[in-house]
């Protein structure tokens, strides 16, 4: 079965695509509404600025089909900014609505720590879920972000601490998301993607 990778006009999509292909998953880049409405599983990767991301989705008329897929129970995996865009808003772009699949908003990391939070960090499991199956408790994942969803307001499956506790892994029915980059997180990251691929097959 094919996994649709949402192409909003920026970001390093080839590395996500390659990581999924290496696991044996077939992928296609979703650049128009039709690619999303026919999708059986969706990956929403993102880097850069919140408003550029949601505007990119809007300009390509991808917001309504994403909403429809979400409502229909199609599995969606958000990565980095793709996680943040699932919320209602972000402090990075006040007044700019997010996709609103999740309640709450995304905040700037506190000023008492280095920001962006760049590098390899560990997770704290909050509840058992799909994405971290078979991943060692002390595994490291690669993060690169300045904004994050506070852990307590999100359906957090695993949290990470950097000045504040934030959602590193989110799981809520068909909605899955990670703040780190699984495609850049070595073997641990590959296992997370493998869990997604197996869950949607």
């Amino acid at each position: 079965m094919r996994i649709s990778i949402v192409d909003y006009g920026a970001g390093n999509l080839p590395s996500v695509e390659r990581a999924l292909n290496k696991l044996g998953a077939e992928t296609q880049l979703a650049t128009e509404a039709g690619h999303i409405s026919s999708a059986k599983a969706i990956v929403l990767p993102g880097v850069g600025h919140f408003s550029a991301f949601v505007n990119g989705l809007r300009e390509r008329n991808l917001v309504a089909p994403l909403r429809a897929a979400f409502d229909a129970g199609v599995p969606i995996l958000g990565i980095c900014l793709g996680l943040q865009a699932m919320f209602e808003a972000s402090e990075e772009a006040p007044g700019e609505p997010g996709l609103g699949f999740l309640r709450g908003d995304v905040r700037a990391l506190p000023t008492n720590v280095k920001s962006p939070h760049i590098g390899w960090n560990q997770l704290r499991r909050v509840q058992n879920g799909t994405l971290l199956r078979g991943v060692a408790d002390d595994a490291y994942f690669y993060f690169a972000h300045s904004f994050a969803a506070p852990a307590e307001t999100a359906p957090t499956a695993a949290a990470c601490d950097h000045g504040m506790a934030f959602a590193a892994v989110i799981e809520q029915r068909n909605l899955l998301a990670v703040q780190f980059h699984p495609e850049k997180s070595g073997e641990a990251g590959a296992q997370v993607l493998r869990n997604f691929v197996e869950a949607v097959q």
Partner: protein
Amino acid sequence: MTLARRIIPCLDVDAGRVVKGVEFEGLRDMGDPAELAARYNREGADELVFLDISATHQGRETFLETIRRVARELNIPLTAGGGIRSMEQGRAVLRAGADKVTVNTAAIKRPELISELAQQFGAQAVVLSIDVKRNGAGWEAYTRGGRDATGIDAEKWAREAVSRGAGEILLTSIDRDGTCTGFDCELTSTIAAAVSVPVIASGGASTFDDFRDVFEKGRADAALAASIFHQETRSIAALKQYLKERHIPVRLSK
């Protein structure tokens, strides 16, 4: 749960090959970029930096092809740069598969380049590289691979770059580069205290203790080295084990 200190091999690339500058002799061939990248990826490098040191237009095209080949081998982040002067050149490097772009000389000449790259690709994708020489009581930024003095104070420049959107500082001590006398911990801790973004220390690495010092005394977030890793005299896995035993948080790959 702690953010790990990063170990980053750096590869200088000329005409599609990894090279190392040798005093009086010119460049020595160190191997195929994709092969070296795959080895570092396997050995537990946390990230790779690729710098284009070719001076010709044809060399630049080859560099992009090298980035494409290297990116296919990696499941860790890749930073690339060397002679990047415009947003379009930055975009080309990122499109070829790099996660971050590093800028140096062109950003000193036109600091807006940092803002343009950060607005377009995000601060996490922009690494400002600063080459620094000790100058009396302070530190001075140099351009063109350490050849030209700028009269610019390195600390002030680092602060300005961060305010313009640089997400990391790659800090090279020209005084230490190639000397094998250890990182400049005083320079590193000064810049690390001055900016809110991670600092990658570079220049002078030789022993495992040099890395320990730059993390403990230099307060570096990451440490970069080139030739000591290429020649397999020091393995990344052994270095990380050494640091872990000394309670410096590092990622050990299994």
